[in-house]
């Protein structure tokens, strides 16, 4: 092995890349992480929240030290029409127990902290360098190419995000398909901590996660989201590309309309927009996972499609950590044996299969398809819920109808069989 060769080079300073680098450096490997932005996190966006369980295993008690925003102790789900909003709310101290807690985060801030941890562990961080290609000799990945420079390593980890142009270049997968990815657009709206506590009925340091189906994504597959941060709100809209292109308004317009919805506008009053962002989300689940192991190379995080959107919960960052842990275990084993062949690195797949990453992806494998096949969730049920609530709560002075008759009218409009079928299929896919 030549002196200037690294044990591992990691492409991408997101959560998957940084955690892989951290774990390898901690065990004494020579690790370089290359990030194209000016700092780790500068190209990254989340909705969003991180479920702590996987990072907790690697850095116990991390949330005490890390710049997380608020601990989520209140979950809300809404069915929203143009004029109405029907919400289910769940608040519980159980949501905040260490190990099963979750936090709103801002990646521009959080990833820098994670990168500093990796640097402390000995990772050589290089920022502002775009990896253009990989050094491939006789089918084996031997390092990275950035402009005129070539850097060699025993193993290269692709943590270059959902677009992973490098995995595409290797031929590990084709272009992403429009039904496999959603685009999210988000605004950060600044409000004081006190105003947020009051408007969202939160205790200090605690916060709300709120997901919306229906009008936010113009009735197309997708939805709206709202997360409370320390002194800001993350508000956005996500929509699956294959459906979005059939919409009658633009994605930025959807967000604008969502902001001015009568249920949302008062929550944002007096807030100042601090940032506008957009990002892709891999939503195809198990069926979109590409080839992730080759001679001298592994793929982790979003680049491997490790993400789940269940409608009531969206998970990506905990999978990023989980896949990073599996990749690091595989590389450490390979390093011991000094065998970085695809055959040996196959242990990455075994570690993934044993971990929650593959177990959960497999468990929910049919859910993305269910959402795609059930447009009523986005363009039917929100209206039905709103109609039932309207009949219940709006007093007009007209003679009342028996409640059963009133409910059945709306149920019949949707079709009793449709509701039964969607419910059955939905529950079966979870």
């Amino acid at each position: 092995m030549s002196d200037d060769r690294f044990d591992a080079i990691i492409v991408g300073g997101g959560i998957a890349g940084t955690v892989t680098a951290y774990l390898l450096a901690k065990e004494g490997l020579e690790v370089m992480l290359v990030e194209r932005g000016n700092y780790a996190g500068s190209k990254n966006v989340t909705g969003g929240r991180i479920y702590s369980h996987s990072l907790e295993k690697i850095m116990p008690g991390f949330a005490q030290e890390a710049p997380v925003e608020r601990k989520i102790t209140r979950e809300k789900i809404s069915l929203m029409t143009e004029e109405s909003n029907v919400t289910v709310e769940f608040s519980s101290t159980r949501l905040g127990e260490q190990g099963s807690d979750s936090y709103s985060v801002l990646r521009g801030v959080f990833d820098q902290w994670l990168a500093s941890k990796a640097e402390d562990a000995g990772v050589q961080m290089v920022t502002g360098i775009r990896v253009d290609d990989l050094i491939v000799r006789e089918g084996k990945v031997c390092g990275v190419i950035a402009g005129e420079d070539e850097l060699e390593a025993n193993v290269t980890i692709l943590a270059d995000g959902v677009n992973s142009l490098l995995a595409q270049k290797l031929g590990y997968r084709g272009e992403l398909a429009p039904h496999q990815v959603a685009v999210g657009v988000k605004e950060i709206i600044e409000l004081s901590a006190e105003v947020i506590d009051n408007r969202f009925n939160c205790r200090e340091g605690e916060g709300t996660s709120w997901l919306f189906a229906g009008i936010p994504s113009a009735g197309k597959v997708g939805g709206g989201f709202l997360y409370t941060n320390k002194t800001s709100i993350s508000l956005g809209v996500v929509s699956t590309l294959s459906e979005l292109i059939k919409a009658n308004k633009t994605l930025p317009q959807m967000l604008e309309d969502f902001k001015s919805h009568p249920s949302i506008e008062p929550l944002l009053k007096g807030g100042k927009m601090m940032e506008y962002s957009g990002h892709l989300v891999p939503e195809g689940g198990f069926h979109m996972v590409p080839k992730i192991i080759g001679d001298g190379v592994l793929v982790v995080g979003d680049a491997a499609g490790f993400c789940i959107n269940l409608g009531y919960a969206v998970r990506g960052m905990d999978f990023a950590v989980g896949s990073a842990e599996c990749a690091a275990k595989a590389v450490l084993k390979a390093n011991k044996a000094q065998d970085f062949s695809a055959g040996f690195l196959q242990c990455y797949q075994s570690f993934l299969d044993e971990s929650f990453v593959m177990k959960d992806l497999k468990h929910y494998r049919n859910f993305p398809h269910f959402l795609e096949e059930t447009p009523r969730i986005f363009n039917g049920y929100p209206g039905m819920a709103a109609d039932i609530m309207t009949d219940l709560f709006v007093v007009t002075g007209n003679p009342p109808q028996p409640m059963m008759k009133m409910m059945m009218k709306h149920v019949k409009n949707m079709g009793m069989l449709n509701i039964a079928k969607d419910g059955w299929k939905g529950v079966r896919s979870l």
Partner: protein
Amino acid sequence: MTIVNTVNVDQKLGIDKFHVDEGNAHIVLKKDKIDMQEYQKLMIACPAGLYKIDENGNPQFDYAGCLECGTCRVLCGKTILEKWEFPQGTMGIEFRFG
């Protein structure tokens, strides 16, 4: 189909921090006649609203406010885009919050 879009996205992008690589576009549309059906997908889906049409109905695109999400490449990479790559290192959008 008319597509509703009254929001001023440029104003929002004005709040973001960009290091624009002047004279070095990382996304380029094809030179030949653009298939407007394809173009319309990007008018709807681009979160930065960069795919516009001018008063004569011709495509008008500027990469400067790109959020680097990849939506246009996924939708139209094989049809109306000549090139899609990430900006050079240090260049492009810089999320302070993300």
